[in-house]
């Protein structure tokens, strides 16, 4: 055991003296986390979709036409829409082609006159064919706007039509007609007042667990990082483990292992020394990444009693995997190739690049049965959902099963290689 620790310490000192490559590999999860936050963080932290962008082309430029965009920028609709004014159909077309807007509303010239005259007043609606949901949502609001507009107009239809008849006749209204018009508009006002309740028709959203609308990642950006950072760290650790193992392989190729073999050091100590070096190195780097997560991304490192066994289990698995690869490989190139392929495949299937929740059910099961998928979900269960050791027992079992299996296989392969 003493010899194994000396060998492990020797390898670890070499990392500390030449950490360049490992620092580069550690920079990857940090940079990717920042990029993912830049892309999705604000939206994810709020738990809501970004607003739907709608273009408005007001060709009438009157008091009544100016009220049309108001439907999208006021009331409850204002949280769901982002309005932008355009000067021409060509400008709108170019924005559509870049897929930067869901729909265009055109208020044509003569709109106000048509409304006052009680004739047909058209609102042009142009959906962006590149999108599906956004235009539908925008159209629903336009339909509601015309519904309400027509409803309000209906309340004052009678007195308005009398006014138009008098104006068309080109004469002054008689005193009796004035009284009738006043009463008519008064009644219209009362009915309009009664339509105030329209603003009271609301559709509130309740989400699981909360009385108010809640978020997917929480209202706190820290939860976003707690969700995405573990997966990125696990991905980086797999490549870091490969880099650590390749150093051992190159020692072997340079004859260092042969020189150690002629010393009175048992072969088991040499093998154990390599394993201790890998596991300790990976754990140390995992702690450094966790500290970066806590300091920079403010991820709360809760429940160490649950985090530590997960971290240790994954470190053992990653070490075992690459120790097995170098035990079987004849050169650093083939070890690098095999290790890289395995890391790529388990990362794809384990939900490193895309959350496993978006996989079909069969693949979700595969993801949770893989050590990286189980470890990633275990970290999320602890950091985001606050689960303890008992809560992540299943994940721990998967990770440790793989860890012990790969490490045992690596030890057996290395012993066989040394015997030969």
């Amino acid at each position: 055991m003493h010899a194994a620790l000396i060998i492990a310490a020797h390898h670890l000192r070499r990392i500390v003296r030449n950490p360049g490559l490992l620092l580069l590999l550690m920079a990857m999860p940090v940079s990717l986390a920042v990029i993912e936050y830049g892309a999705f963080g604000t939206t994810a932290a709020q738990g809501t979709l970004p607003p739907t962008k709608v273009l408005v082309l007001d060709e009438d430029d009157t008091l009544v036409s100016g009220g049309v965009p108001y439907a999208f920028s006021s009331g409850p609709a204002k949280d769901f829409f982002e309005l932008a004014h355009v000067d021409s159909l060509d400008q709108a077309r170019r924005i559509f082609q870049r897929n930067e807007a869901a729909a265009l509303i055109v208020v044509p010239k003569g709109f106000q006159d048509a409304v006052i005259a009680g004739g047909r007043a058209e609102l042009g609606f142009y959906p962006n064919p590149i999108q599906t949901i956004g235009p539908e949502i925008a159209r629903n609001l336009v339909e509601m706007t015309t519904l309400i507009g027509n409803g309000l107009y209906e309340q004052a239809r009678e007195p308005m039509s009398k006014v138009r008849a008098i104006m068309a006749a080109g004469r002054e209204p008689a005193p009796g007609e004035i009284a009738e018009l006043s009463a008519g508009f008064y009644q219209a006002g009362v009915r309009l007042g009664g339509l105030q309740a329209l603003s009271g028709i609301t559709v509130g959203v309740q989400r699981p667990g909360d009385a108010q609308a809640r978020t997917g990642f929480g209202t706190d950006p820290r939860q976003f990082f707690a969700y995405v950072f573990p997966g990125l760290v696990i991905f980086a650790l797999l490549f870091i483990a490969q880099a650590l193992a390749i150093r051992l392989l190159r020692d072997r190729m340079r004859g260092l292992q042969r020189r150690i073999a002629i010393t009175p050091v048992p072969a088991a100590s040499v093998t154990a020394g390599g394993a201790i070096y890998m596991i300790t190195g990976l754990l140390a780097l995992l702690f450094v990444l966790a500290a970066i997560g806590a300091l920079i991304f403010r991820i709360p490192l809760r429940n160490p009693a649950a985090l530590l066994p997960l971290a240790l289990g994954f470190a053992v698995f990653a070490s075992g995997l690459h120790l097995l690869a170098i035990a079987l490989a004849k050169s650093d190139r083939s070890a690098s190739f095999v290790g890289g392929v395995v890391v790529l495949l388990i990362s794809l299937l384990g939900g490193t690049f895309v959350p496993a929740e978006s996989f079909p059910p069969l693949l979700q099961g595969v993801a949770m049965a893989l050590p990286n998928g189980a470890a990633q979900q275990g970290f999320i269960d602890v950091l985001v959902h606050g689960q303890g050791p008992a809560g992540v027992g299943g994940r721990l079992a998967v990770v440790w099963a793989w860890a012990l299996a790969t490490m045992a296989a690596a030890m057996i392969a290395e012993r066989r290689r040394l015997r030969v």
Partner: protein
Amino acid sequence: MRNVLVIAWYDMKRVLRERESLFWLFIGPLIFTTFFGLLMRPPAPRPPRLTIVNQDATDRVARGMETLLAAEGVVIQFALEPVPGRMSLIVPAGADAALASGEAVPFVLRAGAEETNAERNTRFRIQKAATRLYFAAHAAGAPAAEGPLVIADGDLGVRRHETTAGFQRSVPAYLVMFVFLNLLVSGAGIAEDRSSGRLRRIAMAPVSRGEIALGKLLGRFGIGWIQIVYMLAFGFVVGITWAANIWLFLAFLSVFALASASLGILLGTAFEDPDKCASVAVWTAVVLSPLGGLWWPLEVVGPSMRRLAYFVPTGWAMEGVNAMLAFGAGARDVAPFAAAFVALFAVSFPLAARRLRA
């Protein structure tokens, strides 16, 4: 020129003999493209489903909502309690009386943990149906629907192929990513040539430094083109629609490959250790890929991330490729991106050639 071709040929042969290179040229891109192409297939259109939970004394409002929403294509079912995993509309107690007396009616939609497009769309449908119901209860005279305001549907004539889902998304995106990645990583070959003494041996031959640099560039350009042809062929197999102007598309990819190869050589001259060079190359490609819109469409990110894409080579490549694939952009539209690659090549290659020392 013969020396250039010989150096290029031997570099290409060396790369194509290595298992690792073959994997990342042919198998890796296939795995990524197929996995994400299948995962990101657009789902089959399904009518939205909604459960109505009626807490009112009468079912007039609930049935009214059912009729109006069903007319919009929403599949309705009634239940006594909200159904987990399904959107549920709760018609509150007193809704009918409130509607009749012109008071507020607070409907509640029980939804999932995060807002989705389907939820937002359903919410607006419910709001619209509730508004119609209100007018039906209060209409004085003609129904509200018969007013002066009318919606006239129009078409701006925008025609664009879908580029954000399935293989139509994954093949072009991973073509750009793996060409960029492989050509950057190929710079590690320069560092390896230097550390193994191969570059020194070439330098001792009657070959100029310019010829060596051009040979290295041409070899990598050739590898890039092998990968491009491979991905184009795969795209044809899975039935994606490539650009209408195929020659312009190929020319654009050539400029992209040339600039990437030149960047890779420059990177190789900056490192003594091939492992470090390869790691930096991978890190660079991995960081620039999402920034350029290769991992997710830029339409789904915020405006600042979209603007950032215009400053990275992967963004130039993806914008140009998308423009040609999505709406048949011509030379004028992709010229700025091609010019950016030409500029990148013009800066990086002379620098790389000067730094290329044994």
